[in-house]
């Protein structure tokens, strides 16, 4: 049997397709095997005491601490903003909790918002490359800036607007470079990481440490004796959009 050049090209093309198919099947098998089973030991979470937080108007110490710790660029253009923790008027954070004749507590008050580190995070569900994932041992929603392809599906999926995209190179817009934390490149998504780099060294999150009013209380929600859990037992608290079933790990004490 003679194999012509045309046949040879066709056969090698088919062969390549076969190999690619095998790799894809293997990958799927591996991915579905690794997604099974969880052994959560901790669940990091935060309680924000609005009575303390709103005592001083215009305070942004937590935001500044985060910006410095994480090399967050400052762009004047609102469209291209990158932010991990920021202030947002109370009524835009909880648009439907006080309507009509209900008493308007905290109206117009800026309150801090950030990634909710949801127990069931929609961003993780949609990411096509697992560049964002929930760390099983402590519930932190993580980001791999080297794997992210910048499709921004996670931004569309996050119901809280917690994710930012690097529309341009962020490095020239970093005020003071912190050499202990990586900078990002253009074209990737980023968000609050609950200071996992500090937690690994036994420290608390930078925003929590920076708050002089001690309005941000961080701890392990899996431990019923932890400070945030004790506060949640004694006071009324809100989560953002709990009806979506994402189960946010940030609570606001009102």
């Amino acid at each position: 049997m003679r194999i012509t050049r045309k046949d040879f090209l066709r056969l090698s093309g088919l062969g390549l397709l076969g190999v690619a198919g095998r790799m894809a099947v293997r990958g799927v098998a591996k991915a579905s095997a690794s997604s099974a089973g969880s052994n959560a030991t901790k669940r990091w979470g935060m309680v924000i005491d609005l009575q303390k937080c709103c005592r001083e108007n215009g305070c942004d110490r937590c935001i500044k601490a985060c910006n410095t710790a994480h090399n967050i660029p400052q762009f004047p253009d609102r469209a291209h903003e990158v932010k991990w923790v920021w202030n947002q008027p109370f009524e835009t954070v909880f648009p439907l909790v006080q309507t009509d004749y209900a008493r308007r507590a905290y109206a117009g008050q800026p309150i801090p918002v950030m990634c909710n580190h949801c127990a069931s995070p929609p961003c993780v569900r949609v990411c096509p490359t697992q560049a964002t994932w929930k760390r099983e041992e402590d519930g932190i929603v993580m980001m791999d800036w080297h794997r992210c392809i910048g499709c921004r599906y996670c931004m569309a999926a996050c119901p809280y607007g917690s994710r930012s995209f690097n529309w341009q190179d962020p490095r020239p817009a970093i005020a003071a470079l912190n050499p202990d934390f990586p900078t990002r490149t253009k074209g990737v998504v980023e968000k609050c990481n609950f200071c996992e780099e500090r937690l690994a060294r036994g420290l608390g999150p930078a925003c929590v440490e920076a708050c002089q009013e001690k309005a941000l209380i961080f701890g392990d929600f899996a431990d019923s004796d932890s400070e945030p859990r004790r506060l949640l037992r004694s006071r009324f608290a809100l989560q953002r959009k709990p009806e979506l079933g994402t189960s946010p790990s940030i609570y606001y004490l009102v």
Partner: protein
Amino acid sequence: MFMLEKAIVGGRRYRVWMLCLCGLILAGVLCYLRQLTQGLAITGMSRDVSWGLYIAQFTFFVGVAASAVMVVLPYYLHDYKAFGRITILGELLAVGAVTMCMLFVFVDMGQPTRVLNVLRYPTPWSLMFWDFISLGGYLFLNALISVIMLRAEREEVPPPKWIKPIVILSIPWAISIHTVTAFLYSGLPGHTFWMTAVLAPRFLASAFASGPALLILLCLVLRKVAGFDAGCEAIHKLGIIVTYAMVINVFLISVEFFTVFYSRIPEHLEHFRYVFLGLDGNYHLAPWMWLSLLLSVPALALLLVPAWRNSPRLLPLACVFVFVSLWLDKGLGLIVGGFTPSPFGAVTVYTPTWPEATIVAGVWAIGAFIITVFYKITLSVREAH
């Protein structure tokens, strides 16, 4: 190989057309190179409206691609002979449209060099992964079917038997690509504009109206420039398909309107208010969306009256109305409307920038180039007989 040699020769008009397309492609490539170096900041997208024209165009052209099933199904499944001359045109249109979809997704990536991470780390719970699979598979199926059919036509032999199951497979596959695309949006918590079970059916209805409308227009253009006759019966039948699909599409939109405006749930209402009435003094999108709604009225009138639908002068007009109306609805309003207002109730205006629009035009030109080449080859093969 693939009879490409037939695409190189052509008349003056053909060469001028191809040259114009090449010019547009070049402009698009240059703007894309700028986007590569400066980042997506050169587009009109923002933190609040994080998907824009690119993803909207992708969504629209998935519909055009899926609509090939409207000629494939009657021809292969019901042996409807009148579609014999245009079925391959539909399949080739699908190949061109899927290529455009892939390019639109590609130009939207922040890190295009990493795009194969989707295959390196397959993630079956992500709809984006399935979109890759379904689009890639659909491209492969349609390209294979067209090549085999065209080759059979050239050799004047019946197509090989093994192609039939592949053709049959391409029918549910076409439905799947647009369903998966709708699921990209309708499965997201917090975006009430997209969170409707009717999104996938609506996508299919608008696809089966806009795709065949485009195919009718292409057939009429081919009649003028290449003397290709699709046959009156085929064109009329396509007209009926467009009519049914458009009626169903308008019905589904009305169903959405009723649900949202009668229930008056603020979260659902505010997106529709922004899209059709304007919100907080921002009316940027509303005129376009009204144009889309208003165009569907004469389109439906022209399609529903048989005498008008079968008129060789009015049918193309109806097709243009249908296409533009659905393009505005799906290729513009759907994505921007889903993002506005933001989760904090902010209205951020999205206006595509010139480089962004040029990249979009470049991708269109690539699609038009591919379809022209395919149609040229097909018609040359037929002329040879």
